[in-house]
């Protein structure tokens, strides 16, 4: 773990949207174990995420990490709807292929960033560090 453990109050509140259960399992492990994030929700697609958000959860995420390719509402739908209805929440999109056009499309739609998924999903630690470096200045309260 590169980052120091943060005071629970200062951890970044994150929600994960990923349709592959196995992958999601390892993501949750890495985000949870990093000590810099507080995982407050995990969802299989956009439909599940928005059902949850629509029910006014007590704590809203500061950051949503979403896969792009999912059944039902996919990553693009997540980016659009969050930008439209929850502009205070940042969205980072992930995918197995890095295509410049895809990255541009995501950013145009309102995503904070587009990141390539790790080579194998059993090793999300360095991915989690990259996400932290990307958003800590804006989202970590001192």
């Amino acid at each position: 773990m590169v980052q120091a453990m943060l005071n629970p109050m200062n951890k970044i509140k994150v929600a994960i949207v990923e349709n592959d259960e196995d992958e999601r399992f390892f993501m949750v492990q890495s985000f949870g174990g990093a000590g810099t994030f507080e995982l407050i929700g995990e969802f299989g697609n956009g439909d599940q995420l928005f059902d949850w958000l629509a029910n006014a959860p007590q704590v809203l995420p500061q950051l949503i990490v979403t896969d792009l390719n999912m059944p039902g509402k996919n990553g693009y739908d997540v980016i659009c709807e969050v930008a439209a209805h929850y502009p205070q929440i940042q969205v980072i999109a992930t995918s197995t292929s890095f295509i410049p056009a895809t990255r541009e499309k995501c950013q145009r739609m309102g995503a904070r960033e587009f990141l390539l998924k790790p080579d194998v999903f059993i090793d999300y630690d360095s991915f989690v560090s990259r996400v932290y470096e990307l958003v800590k200045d804006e989202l970590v309260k001192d």
Partner: protein
Amino acid sequence: MPITHETAFEQLGEGFLILDPTGKILNCNTAASKISGYLFTELEHQPFSLLGGADLDSIKYQYELDRALQEKKLIVEGWKSKKDGTRFWCEATYTAIFNESVHSGFLVLLRDVTERKQIELQLLQSQEQYRLMVEAVRDYSIFMLDPEGHILTWNEGGTLIQGYIESEVLGRHFSMFYTADDLLDKKPERGLEIARATGTYLEEGWRVKKGGSLFWASVVMTALFNEQNKFVGFSKVTRDLTDRLQSEAHLRNSEARYRSLVEQVADYGIFMLDTKGRIVSWNEGAKRIKGYTADEVIGKYFSIFYPEEDIVSGKPPRELRIARATGKYEEEGWRLRKDGSPFWASIVITAVYDQDHRLTGFSKVTRDLTERKMAEQKLQESSNKYRQLVQDLWSTNRQLTAVNRELEEFTAVVSHDLKEPVRTIKSFLRLADQQLRQSNLQQALVSVDKGIRGTQRMQELIDNLLNYTQVSKTDLKYQALSLSGIIAQVQQNLQEAIRQSNGTIRTEISADDLLADQVQIIQLFQNLISNALKFNEAPSPTVTICSWYEGDQIRIQVADNGIGIPEGQLEKVFGVFRRLHFPSQYPGTGIGLSICKKVVERHKGKIWAESQPDQGASFQIILPLNGSSNVESHE
């Protein structure tokens, strides 16, 4: 034996020389040495200006070569000298030669036209007098004769010159103005004969005034033709030259200069008409363009140049009326040459007035634009052709761009979606590896099992992809099909799925005929119907297929009582590998509807989905009925 260029060159009747860029003679044919009187060996390597005679007028020759180079082609007429010093009137046509746009010399064509020139010079003289008369009409006695020579009209000039008033002469024979000697000589009759045969009779001689005194008269008799070119009599113009000889000589000189100018214009036919439209003068250009010599046309009504329909519609006199009223008449149109062949003419008719502003006739300038028109037409045709080509290229380009974009999107989606299971397999292999190292056999077996499932999914994706590509690649075989027959076939294929889902297929087919590719249409309905059964939670899934005609299209609807499609996803369902549900819930790769869309689009039709909450989904299809007449364009 075939004719070679060399033989043709050698035997050409016209003199032919090849010059280098500086004007030195490189080669010439027999005719050229014959015309010039020089042997080939005497001409070779000599400047072309050698033919200019003793004075070696090389400046003029250089000037002509320069012009020929500038204008590519130049025709010059003038005197040239033979070896023995005799002159000959020669028409020289220069053509600049280019070899891959580098100037490499000149071709010169020589034609000895001495005889023609002499005829022209004679003509010039005979017309000079006539022209003088037309321009000074008020000093002339002008009257008309019937074909036998009886006086029909009289004018003021006649009263002044001959001394008779109108009533004294009308109806009398014009021989009354001749001397006794001339009458014995039958000069009046001979004058009429000549005028009738050649168009004009010119004479200067003594004539008798009223009271018997003599005056030196210049006489022109012109045969008159009406608008149908029928001979109707003569005009006779008489002038008293007794005390006007000096001024006439002066006029003659300035006229001669003007005349030679007009004469030598070869590109324009320039000639004069009298007030009635009869031709009174003629130049070289007119001769070249229309093919008539001066003798053949002078005195004729100018309508002889017009096609029959123009004559019938009264166009020639109308043009003169307009020129008279407005001063000028201009147009382009077809005219006829002597040999009857048409040429495209640009003409300008200008009314000509004398010093007292009386109309004395018309000048007519004619230009042969046939070649220019043809060139313009060719240019237009080729321009049209290129425009068409550009349009074709544009549309091809648009199609290619569309195909490219589609291909790009497709490649992106496919590479991405194929990569996903590969990554899954790799991940589980790495996980199994870790677990085996920790001797965690049970967990490792689970990971291996999940990895195998990843390979199965990969295989499915590749199979479907091949299937999809096949739909776009294969040529369509259009044939007349029966929709109910197709549905029956699909029901047969899906027998097992229908039985397992406890489903029912209903048809309400009002439009049965369609023109389409059988294999693809079966695939279309098979995908739609199996989807309708799959995405269905009803105890007895029902699929209803309706069809009806809409104009020259057939509309087909496939409706079900299944789970429906959320409003925002209606268009997305057609995307490649696009799924709305987790595979655990409704298995599939998300390619079925992409194939349906591809099939319909290849048949130039449209497909879209409709869904009302809790009322299932319906797929709407429109296909053109004249399927085979559509050329495939965006494949």
